[in-house]
Structure formats: C-alpha cells, structure tokens
C-alpha cells in the first residue's frame, strides 16, 4: 500500500548545475513600463474567467477526501464486536504531541472488553493537540487504532475536543455484539489477531 504514495522519481533531463557557471543577473528595477505590458498581465486574468471552477460550496457541498487522508481516529472492533484496543499505550508513547491518554485495565470473565488479558479502560485523544501525523497508527500493535477520513472536527469548547473512548469506537456492524461479552468459544487472543473469528457465536450473547 505504502509504495503507492511514494513520489515517483522522474528523469527530467536537466543538466546538473555547475556552481561556477551561475551568473548573477542584476534585477531590473523598472516596473511595467508600457500599456502593452499591462494588457499582457490582464490577459492572464481574462483567460482564467473561462476555466473550470475549483471552488466547492462547502458546507452545502462536500467532496470526498483522498482515500488516505488523515482524519479523526477510530478504535476498531473484532468481527464479533470485542474491542481491538488492549490499552498498551504505545500510541500515547509514539505521539509527538502528547495528545493521547490511555489507561489499561484487566479483562475479567464477567467484564471482557477485548480478547486477552488487557483492554483500554480510558482512551482519550485531544484534538487540540493532535497533529494528524499518524504515528499512533503505526505504533498500534493490534490495528485497533486507525484514521478515518472525517475532518469536521471544529468545535466551540476545549473540553468537547477531547474525544473519549465512546466517541472514537467504531460502530457495531452486522455480526457484532456489544461488549462486554465472552470470547468466541475455543478461540484465544492469537486466533483473534490472526482473523480466525469472523462473527459472533450465539453463546457469546450474555443476558444483562
């Protein structure tokens, strides 16, 4: 994937510049000296009047972003609904802007939020600090944290720009159950990471 966005190296056929061959040219201080030259300038403006318009009538009209645009984060789920986040804080560690705050906690039989031992109990991203560099995404060992293309993050108070776990969690799709619930029968956390779990099993539904 990442090779697609690497800038391709094109041979432009330029001569390498020899420093010794560069000559300094005195800057002409004379402005537009003649009416003809001024007309020439306005011709550029005139031509542009007939070009296709790039302006978008945002917010009435919204254009999709580039597919890999760095927007708001999302905390993903396993196909059965369990959270992928294990609360390891590697995202917080990687963050150059100190925008992420995580507290881990133990999964128990009664309260299982993710496969394995640990889940993220508190997860906050401060969008006043986030610089959307994506290092957190690279650091995430479980692919729990990814970025969406959502860019409408403006708000009118500082506190509302600190996104909590509930704001960041991916929605439940078909085949997903709202945690806490047990792991898929006869599967362990490694199976989850390998993608062996494809949806929930009826036994995972817990009566509350």
């Amino acid at each position: 994937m990442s090779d697609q966005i690497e800038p391709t190296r094109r041979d432009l056929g330029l001569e390498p510049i020899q420093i010794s061959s560069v000559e300094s040219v005195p800057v002409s201080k004379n402005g537009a000296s003649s009416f003809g030259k001024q007309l020439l300038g306005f011709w550029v403006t005139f031509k542009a009047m007939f070009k296709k318009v790039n302006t978008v009538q945002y917010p009435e009209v919204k254009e999709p972003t580039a597919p890999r645009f760095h927007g708001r984060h999302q905390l993903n789920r396993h196909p059965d609904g369990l959270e992928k986040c294990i609360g390891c804080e590697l995202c917080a560690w990687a963050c150059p802007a100190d925008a992420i705050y995580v507290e881990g906690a133990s999964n128990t039989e009664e309260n299982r939020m993710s496969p394995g031992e640990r889940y993220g109990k508190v997860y906050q991203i401060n969008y006043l600090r986030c610089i959307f560099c994506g290092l957190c995404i690279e650091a995430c060992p479980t692919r729990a944290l990814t970025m969406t293309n959502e860019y409408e993050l403006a708000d009118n108070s500082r506190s509302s720009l600190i996104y909590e776990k509930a704001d960041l969690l991916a929605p439940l799709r078909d085949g997903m159950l709202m945690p806490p619930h047990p792991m898929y029968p006869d599967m362990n956390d490694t199976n989850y990471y390998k993608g062996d779990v494809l949806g929930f099993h009826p036994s995972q539904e817990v009566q509350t």
Partner: protein
Amino acid sequence: MTTAELVDMVTVVIDGFEISVPKGTLVIRAAEKLGIQIPRFCDHPLLDPVGACRQCLVDIEINGRAFPKPQASCTIPVEPGMIVKTQLTSPVAEKAQRGVMEFLLINHPLDCPVCDKGGECPLQNQAMSTGQGESRFEGVKRTFEKPINISSQVLLDRERCILCARCTRFSDQIASDPFITLNERGALQQVGIYEKQPFESYFSGNTVQICPVGALTGASYRFRARPFDLVSSPSACEHCASGCSLRTDVRRGKTLRRLAGEDASVNEEWNCDKGRWAFKYITSAERLTHPLVRDSAGDLQEASWPEALAAAVAGLGGKQTAVLVGGRVTVEDAYGYSKFARVALKTNDIDFRNRATSDEEREFLAAVVIKSTPSYLDIDRADSVLLVGFEPEEESPIVFLRIHKQVRKRALKVTAIASKLSIGNEKLKSNFVCVAPGAEPAAIKVQELTSKSIILVGERASESAGSLSAVVSLAKESGAKIAWIPRRAGERGALSAGAIGNLLPGARPVNDTEARVDLAAAWGVDSLPSQSGLSSDEIVNAANEGQIEALIVGGVDPLDSANSQQMLNALKKAFVISLEISHSDVTQLADVVFPVAAVVEKSGSFMNWEGRSRSFDLAVESFQRSDLRILSMLADALNAPINLPTVKSAAKEFDSLGMWDGAGAEFTSAPPSGPISLGNNEAILTSWRRLLDEGSLQAGEENLAGTARKTVVVISPTRAQAIGVVDGDQVSVSNAHGSVVLPVLVESIHDDAVWLPRNSRGSHLLATLGVASGSVVTVVKE
C-alpha cells in the same frame, strides 16, 4: 571495613584497560568499574552468583592460556594476569551474547504491549542492544496458562520467565522465605510455589522489582501505567522506623506504585511489602478535605479555615491544654508540636507515645536513647545480637533483613528474650530464651554480652516493668550498644524534637535551667515552662479528671492506646482539636478538625531508629497543609507565634538548635513487677502487631491483606492438652472486658502465656479485651 584493613588487590585487563580490584571481585563487577557494561539478567550484586542466564559471556585468558569457550563473567572472580575481552573487543563474545539472546527469546511470548514491564524491561533493552533483531525460530512457542497468582499480590506469567532465578534466590538468601523454587527441567522449567504454602512472604514485592522480565508483576499495579506516564520522586517510607528510602511513582497526581530505593547503608535495595504496597489510605474516601467545626447542635460541619481557627482559639481560651502527637509525624511536624506546646500553650504536657508506655521508658528515652548512636553497621559488626521486646520481622523488617544477612554470612549469634518463638526468630536461628510475660528482666540480666554486642530494644519492652532497667545495667556491665527500635516511623524523630514531657528539642532536659534558658533565648521567648510534663497516660487520666480541659491530638488512634476506653472518655470530655488525614475515632469526638497532608503530599524528614535523617520531598501536589503549617497558623491566631511557616524553616531552626551538650538526664532503675499467679485455665496475655494487619495505613489494600499471616491463638502443648484442643480448634480468650474466639495453634510458647496478634483480622485486642499484654485472661475451648 576500616581503612587499615589490608585488601589484596588483583590487577586485570578488560578490553585493553587495566584495573585493580579487591581479590574475589567478579569480572562483571570489575568491568562495571571501568564503565564497561556487559549485558546480564541473573546477576545481582546482593545475590549469590548463579550463572543461570548466560547473557554475560566474555572471552577470558589467564596468563596467556585462553578458555576454550566464552565464560559467564558474573560467576568468575578476577585472577592475576587475567585478560578479559567483552563484546566490545571480542567478536566471539559478541556473537555468543547474540546467540544467548536468541535462545532466551525463543520461548518468550513477546507480548510486550500487554506486559507491565514494557518500557522498563531489561530484556527489551538488551534485546535491542545485543539481540539479533530477527529470530530464526519458526516453531511453536511453549505456552503456559497466563498469569497465575502465586500470592494475592504477586502474579506469575511463566511464558515470560527466562529462568534467571533472581526471585528464588532472593526469597531463599535474603528473605529466608523459600516459598518459590524452580520446578521441572528443560523447556518446561518454571517458577513454582509449594502446593500447600502460598508465597506469603513479607518481602515478596522485591521479587517483582528485581525480575528482569515481566514474569513477576504486582497485582495492584497491573496495567495501570507505563514508565513514561510516571513522575518518580525519591521518598522515605512512613510505615516503620527502619527508614527505607523509596521511589514513589505518581501518575496524574495519584500514587500508583512505590519501589525500594537504593541506599547501601540502610535498606540496600530492598523494602517490605507494607512499604511497597500500602499507600491507598492517601486516596481513601475517608480523607478529610476541609476543616470541621462542631456546631451548637453537636454536629460536625464543614467550615472555612478562618472559621475553624477562630473556633479553635475560642475553644482553647486559656484552658489547660495537652498535646498528643502520635508516632507518625515527621521530624519537622514533631518540632512544630513541641514548640507549639511550649510557646503557645506554655506547657510540657506533650507526648508522642500512643501505646503501652511507662515512666521507666520515658526516662530510658531521655537518658539513654537520645544520646545513643546505633546504626545498621553495628549489626553488621556485632558478635551477638540480643532482642528484647522486639520482633524484627514484624516490627522493623529491614532490621530483620540486616540481621539475617549476617546470620547467613557468618552465623551471627542472635538471642531473643520473648514468651513466644516467632517465625522471624526461627529464620534467624535465634537462641530463644522463653520467659513468662513480665519475667523478662531476670532473663536479660543473665545474658552474656561483650562490647561488640548490640541490644535491640523494641517499644514493647516498656510493657514489662524493669526490662529497660535490666537492659541498661546489662549494657553498662558488658559495654554492649543499645538500640531502641520503635515500630512507628515518627517516634525517634519526635523524641529528638522534644515532643515528650521531660525533654525539650535537641535533648535538652526540661528540669535543667540552663537548657531551658538556652532554648528560650534561641526561640526568643521570656521563659519556658519548667515543670516536667505529663506522660500520655497521665494526660488521659488528667483529662478524665478535668485537670486538663483541652487536647490537641495529632495522628492518634485511641485503639492503640494502652487504655483505649479511658482515652475515648477523655476525648469526649475535653475540648479536642484534631489534626488528621482521614475520618477517625478521634475526629468523631473532636470539636475542631483540621485536615492535614499525608506524607506524599508534603516534604519533610523522618528519623529512623539510628537517628539518621530520612528526608523526602513532596511527591503529589495537593491543597493539603502539613501539621506544622496548621500549628503555625493556630499559634498566630493565639497571638503566640511559633514562626515556623514552612518545613524548611522548621528544619533549619531545629538544625541550628543542635543537640544539648550539657549534662543529660539520669536514668534511675525501676524494679521488675512480681510474678503473676494464675488460676485454672488462666494465662498471661502476650501479643505484638504483625507487619501486615488491620493498621489504619493499610486500609483498602485487599491484595496486601491477602498475604497477611493467619490469625491464630498460640498456646503451648501443655496448655493444649490441659484444655483438650488440637491445632485448628476454636479457642476463646476472654477477660472481664470481652472475648476473642479464634482457631488455636500449638507452638513453642511459655506455658503460662497465650499469644494473639494485636490488631489482625478477627483479633483486635485493645478493642475487645481492652488490654494487649501482661494481664491475665481465661483460655478455654469454645
């Protein structure tokens, strides 16, 4: 070690650098001295070498003859003519280390993201510095069930273990609690516990700290933080008089863990589980946040500081006031109390002792302890140790570790004079002198000590009249040193600060005019009260009789007092100003309550039993004020300023006072009490507090409480036969005040005695029996 002692030096060459080190030094240590770091896991300077992990392989040649293979530098002592090449200069050593690392990682799960050690893990770090980066292993890793509780506070993840045996060696060699061991062989080798005996050691936390991987982790810190979240500050332990230096790790204003700090002359690198894990009391819901004032209806209401100060001043209004300081204060706070009593209240009625006390003890403290300068080094050098009214493992665990170190190293002779043989004394292989409670003085007198011996006297020695006198005369005859080791962290400092009726700060005797004038001049007051103050028992009695009408009470639990009922009555009767961190029995009865800062919320210092200052800085920012600050405000409000606005100013003033160099107080011996006659089924009660019990500073620590020793009644085989019980039967111990029913344990104890823990789950002696030791109780089968 004195400088005059000649040490054989050996010169070796490491990576081309020559260095001379004492004979017997390990190669890895010699390299450290040169600043050459050889990677290692199993090596620990305070544990015996074992060579288990093989990470420290180096190339060695001696006098031109090279070892055929790389050798573990942590097990080989230096030899003359040795040439060592570490990974820095020898490609063979470098490759060998890489290979070992690859082997270590074969079965390691690499679950660093969920591992508590991640970020501060020697295995992570050294895998980066000396590892391959990639593994050639393509098989299936060995797996174990993750994690298992080897005690309620220590979790074991066997997959992560690299079998360095640090934990098992620590438990065996340092703590003498060999409850964990390496089981099985080969790839299945694992740390295991005995089936019948959980890992209930008072020192188990150290194994978590020295584990070089995440195999042993603490239950209370599980998944709480990463090292980069934590703000660490060096601190001192507030739990006992051992004086451990600690490291307090705080995340967002909340203490998450405490680790043993390094101090070679005190706690080396260890601490006890109480010091490590008992800190939730700071964040308990019972913490006081605002001053409270009792209103006209008799209810405590939250009040502002000026209101509370005004209420305190109005309440004190010329009344005869006494001060009960409590044993948990810092030196600076104690000095504040001491100065406040003398300057603002114009009285010497102040006492830091809130426990069974005696006048004999007060004289002992003023005449002997205040001038003595014992130290851990004296234990290291002693030819024998005598324990009087003192259970090192329960009451000062680091003293226990230090004695045990010498017992293990050179079979130091330890003699314990007690009624019951404790587990700690068994580990110290003590010569147990079994006496009936109260009969200690006679046993002390016949001990044979030399001038190189040390007598460790606990605070419980005051519970047996004449014991301290016997100790003093024994020390005088033999030239042995006396060390008084109280249980609480603040008592030694409070003694130096003069928070006691017969001493002013800096060992100035109250009844010495010169000393009083000296201090009055330093404080800039006209005169100081000249009459020796009342002791804590006398203060309580006087308050009950109405001679003392107001009490200023620090961190005092009435149920620690030798006569708790009278203490509660006194608190009901008098006008009480309480300085407390949490709601307590005292604040319930107080008229004005000031909330004070806990230890992590202030700076200051403790004085450990050696008289060594253990200073600490503020670890957690809070709005709470120290006792000293509140006393200072109160003194200002009383128009008798003590001029100690900050901890720094108090420390500076106390330092500048210095110790009194004039004549000290004289010790006059007290006679022992007569023998107690016992009827049928009667026994003399004896007890001590266990390290892990229901103390108020351990409140809310479920995991810690899980490793407390079982609460039992201990009686002798003879008595067990007489009342017809065997181990595990329920036995009732009762007196006129109440009774305690507990399972019995038949053990080595004096026939006339019955032992119960003083304040453990199901056995709160002062609350139920009203006494803790020395009195007659009835022991019958339930």
